[in-house]
């Protein structure tokens, strides 16, 4: 199941997670996680809430002990000072100390690193330029997220952990966060981000690891995961009723939303020739491949079935 990423095989491996298991009070939260991190790669850990994404990050940050297995980052144990000096982390933080300004927060965190990023560059990347003198208590949710992002990057880390970075951000802020991530990647920073937004994983990552119930269920590039399902979607307008469409041999599923029918088929060509053969009138036709979201639902669905069996 382990597929090697296209661009990263030649790159340096900076972290290795081997057969990691973790249980809390007999509840298995992570089981047999194997994962490698490469230099300059964006790795998205994708999964529904409670899948174990944050637990996985916390093991890599050394905050959680392992029940089994091993993690090594830059050749050191997670949580040790040599590792901490090379990483930055954006965690899910509910609040920051109220009465410090953005500037004070950033400059303090910069002091923790030997070669921090230039202060103005941090402000620019995180989009905090106009509000550097505001107290953190006056920041909106999205601004707080940007400040946490700034704190994660201000030390010029080689490896950046972003736990649900775009939660609470509006679409503009999210887009600028994505640009910032692209830019850091271009500079050679490795980034591990968790998200439950498929679009985010799709847009940003070189590689996606899908986890569910503490296990890796798929691993690969966004395209590879999408291609694992061969279902196509056929969309059109038509005056016929849904029964005659369901009657078509190659159609797996049919649904109607407003004026449009949406068919799912494993062989779009055959479905189309059937439609034309039956002289069904159609207009405004589109055929699309599966979205990552569909892959995700399908894979999670399969998981549930195998679990039940």
């Amino acid at each position, binding site marked *: 199941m382990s597929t090697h990423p296209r661009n990263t095989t030649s790159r340096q491996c900076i972290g290795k997670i081997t057969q990691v298991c973790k249980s809390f009070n007999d509840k298995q939260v992570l089981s047999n996680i194997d994962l490698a991190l490469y230099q300059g790669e964006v790795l998205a850990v994708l999964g529904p809430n409670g899948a174990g994404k944050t637990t996985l990050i916390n093991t890599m940050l050394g*905050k959680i002990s392992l029940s089994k297995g091993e993690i090594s980052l830059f050749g050191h144990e997670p949580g040790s000072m040599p590792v901490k000096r090379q990483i930055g982390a954006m965690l899910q933080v509910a609040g*920051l100390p109220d009465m410090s300004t953005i500037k004070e927060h950033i400059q303090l965190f910069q002091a923790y690193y030997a070669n921090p990023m230039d202060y103005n560059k941090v402000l620019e990347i995180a989009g905090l330029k106009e509000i550097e003198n505001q107290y953190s208590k006056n920041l909106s949710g999205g601004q707080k997220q940007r400040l946490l992002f700034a704190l994660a990057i201000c030390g010029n880390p080689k490896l950046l952990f972003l736990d649900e970075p775009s939660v609470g951000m509006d679409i503009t802020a999210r887009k600028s966060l994505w640009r910032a991530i692209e830019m850091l990647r271009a500079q050679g920073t490795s980034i591990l981000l968790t998200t439950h937004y498929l679009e985010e994983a799709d847009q940003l990552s070189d590689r996606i690891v899908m986890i569910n119930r503490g296990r890796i269920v798929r691993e690969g590039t966004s395209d590879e995961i999408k291609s694992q399902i061969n279902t196509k979607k056929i969309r059109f307008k038509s005056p016929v009723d849904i029964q005659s469409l369901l009657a078509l041999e190659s159609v797996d599923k049919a649904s109607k939303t407003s004026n449009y029918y949406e068919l799912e088929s494993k062989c779009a060509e055959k479905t189309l020739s059937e439609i034309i053969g039956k002289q069904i009138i159609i207009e405004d036709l589109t055929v699309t491949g599966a979205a990552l979201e569909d892959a995700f639902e399908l894979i999670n669905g399969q998981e549930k079935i195998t679990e039940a069996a």
Partner: protein
Amino acid sequence: MNSQALDKPNLLNIYLLEAKTETTRLLRTPGFSIPTLLFPIMFYTFFGIIFSMNPATMPTYLMITYAVFGVIGPALFSFGVGIAIERGQGWFDLKEVSPMPASAYIISRISLTFIFAAVIVVLLFAIGAVFGGVQLMRWQWISLFFIFVLGSLPFCAIGMTLGLYLKSSSAPATVNLIYLPMGFLSGLWMPINFLPEVMQQFANILPPYHLAQLALKITNMDLGFPVVLHLSVLAVYALLFIVLALKSYNKKDKQ
């Protein structure tokens, strides 16, 4: 790994910046600075000066015990409540994951406690000298100042442990529930020999009692127990709570 990774940041710079950030932050938080500064001063003015039962000795005695009461406050609250709240927010976790040396976190809060303690002590001295007619030799003022400020250290350790074990929502109330009765039972609000015999016995296990006795020795107002006894009790408390704090801090899989 290249050399950049092995470079170390300037530790002294971190200590200074951390302490500065922490202190300015709390000075801007009136909910912290006003009660911690005002309570000991208000109590002393009422009970030590305005309603003083014995103007010859009471202003001096209570200046000393309210100074003990005063320096314990910032120690218990900046550590106890401060850490509990930051833990509740997840901010403490972020600091823990960052390359901040743990010592910087502790030193910044100790310096903050020292600054608040020094201000409280100086204000109490001024009120005592000006309005209470307290007259002491220069060496007595100086010794008292250092006993008070350094005496806050065992309470920093107690506060740190409270901060690491308490929930953020209950921390302020719990710390007050420890702070106020402990102050009263240690004879900080009225002279210890005014309290019933049983309570005087009980005070022996309370650290503020021992710090107060140590300070009262400077003006010959103590009960006459040896210095070593008071110092040892304070040291045992400090050590015990440092161990407890370390135990909680080093425990992984918190919450």
